[in-house]
């Protein structure tokens, strides 16, 4: 399922994931441990964040037309057409200033958490996003936990039994899943499980006007979370499975396993305590990197399940051509991705002493 949205991971993070497709896992290449010093990651991170902020600032200004006309065009009151209002709006959006001045002003606003005002609700985009970030995080964390529960045992089993029947079946299953676009799977699941059989609630994160409190509220949230979370989990699991499997396979011929066998250790112990433990490290990286995949997947999932997260907000903003809201959501989503990637990169260094230069 990840096929759609494999956003290439940052160059400095992982080499095993940088093929556009997934072939690295099929070729059973051991993950590369070649890395750059931490400051390169940091500089690269800062450059990427600045690039994102600048893109966010520049793109709308590169488009033809004028934001005020766009505002008027999307059904604002006809009375706003007069010169005075135009002048007021121009001043409000600082359109009378030069581009560099606007840029400085924009950066200043960002540092104060000021994303501007939504053109549909007229509320602060920062506040509106703030209320939604939690739901997105909840969904994402649920998806990740589910994916780990699915992918890690499956990957261990598959890799341990390389080329045997179980491996072929599991590999086939996960490769198929990986090629299914997430929106297709989610759409099908929604149509069948929610609309047709009514097994899950129709969307949103809680029952509207449900009035649940305490434990009942938690249950209600869980009920709404389970299907989107499961789909997201499946989406991540395909990738994690392939990494877990190939990593496991690369441990198979190790001397320590041979020594363990010679000592007469039981298979179970060798499989889980020895091989799997050593093979787990690349998966840690991938789980972190999933965040960038997750960001794109949640846009689709939240849209289909009307989940009140940032992705859904972005989608809604697109539909209403609400530029400030769109920009805010875009910035929050993308900066989260690159920040998490940096974090993973730094954590990985700690976990694997071989990577520190």
């Amino acid at each position, binding site marked *: 399922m990840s*096929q759609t949205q494999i*956003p290439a991971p940052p160059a400095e993070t992982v080499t095993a994931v940088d*093929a556009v497709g997934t072939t*690295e896992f099929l*070729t059973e290449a051991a993950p590369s441990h070649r890395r750059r010093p931490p400051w390169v990651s940091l500089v690269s*991170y800062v450059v990427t964040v600045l690039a994102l902020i600048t893109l966010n600032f520049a793109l709308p200004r590169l*488009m033809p037309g004028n934001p005020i006309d766009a505002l008027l065009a999307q059904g604002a009151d006809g009375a706003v057409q007069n010169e005075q209002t135009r002048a007021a709006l121009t001043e409000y959006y600082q359109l009378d200033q030069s581009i560099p001045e606007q840029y400085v002003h924009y950066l200043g606003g960002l540092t104060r958490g000021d994303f501007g005002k939504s053109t549909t609700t007229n509320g602060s985009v920062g506040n509106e996003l703030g209320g939604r970030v939690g739901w997105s995080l909840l969904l994402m964390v649920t998806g990740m936990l589910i994916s780990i529960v699915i992918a890690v045992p499956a990957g261990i089993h598959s890799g341990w039994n390389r080329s045997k029947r179980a491996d072929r079946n599991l590999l086939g299953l996960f490769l198929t899943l990986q090629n299914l676009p997430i929106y297709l799977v989610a759409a099908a699941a929604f149509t069948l499980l929610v609309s047709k059989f009514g097994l899950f609630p129709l969307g949103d994160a809680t029952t509207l006007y449900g009035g649940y409190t305490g434990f009942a509220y938690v249950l209600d949230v869980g009920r709404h979370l389970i299907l989107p979370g499961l789909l997201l989990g499946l989406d991540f699991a395909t990738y994690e499975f392939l990494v877990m499997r190939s990593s496991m396979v690369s441990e198979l011929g190790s001397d320590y396993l041979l020594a363990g066998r010679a000592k007469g250790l039981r298979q179970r112990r060798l499989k889980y305590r020895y091989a799997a433990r050593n093979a787990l490290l690349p998966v840690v990286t991938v789980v972190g990197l999933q965040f960038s995949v997750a960001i794109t997947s949640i846009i*689709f999932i939240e849209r289909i399940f009307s989940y009140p997260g940032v992705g859904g907000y*972005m989608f809604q903003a697109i539909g209403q051509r609400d530029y400030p809201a769109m920009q805010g959501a875009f910035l929050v989503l993308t900066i989260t991705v690159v920040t998490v990637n940096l974090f993973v990169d730094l954590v990985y260094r700690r976990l694997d002493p071989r990577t520190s230069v």
Partner: protein
Amino acid sequence: MLGVGTVIIGAFCFVALFAPWLAPHPAIDPFGENYQRPSATHLLGTNDNGSDIFSRLIWGSQTTLIVVVFATTMVLAIGLTVGLTAGLRGGFVDTAAMRIVDVFLGLPILPLLIFVAALAGPSLTVSILMIGLFTWPQTARIVRSQTLTLRQRGFISSARGFGAGPWYVIRRHLIPSLGPVIAANLVFVAGLSVAIEAGLAFLGLGDPTAVSWGAEISRAVGNPQILIDLLWLRWLVPTGLALTFAVVGFTLVGVSLEPSFNPRSNRAR
């Protein structure tokens, strides 16, 4: 895998190229009766606008093929130029190009695509341009690393020693040697562009006038009648399958082409 993939891609291209002869009905039928059940004239019945679902499936492949061809060409052009320049010139040009590639690779593509497509307005050209502009860095990187290794080879240095100019070396030696690597990479890009185009269309950011599988899926899911008369089985499922098969076809070919040319995986074996 190569065989199956080639057959899928071949069938897909055939359907797309011969759509006008293969499709029994036009993509939009202004006089059609909506929600018809399957019959001899309408194999999968008709949709909410009274258009033949089966025909739209066929017409949809055309949109996909157009995006694949143009986006891939663009990626090839940019990736090859940047990769070759970086690999051959080396020094500052190389460093600068690779830093730019790094920044591009660090950007989350899909949110960016969505953002730009939303700003620029939905159209096929925008989709193609966006896919092309944001997926080239991978190609550039592969071309560069291959160029760097090739440059050290005897036949290139001897050609240079005999006074061959850079253009001659590129045309005569580099491009033919790079061919297979680029081909494998482009097949992936093609599969990726199928998925991205459908994804954008699904979000309502594709060309509203083109028949796109992604948009069809979105319309099918959003349709309140989807559960009546097994409409989902006739509309959502075939469209989803067509899309999946196209993506899988490209992935299969890419996967089977790549290992033999990927120096890293060869080394690891």
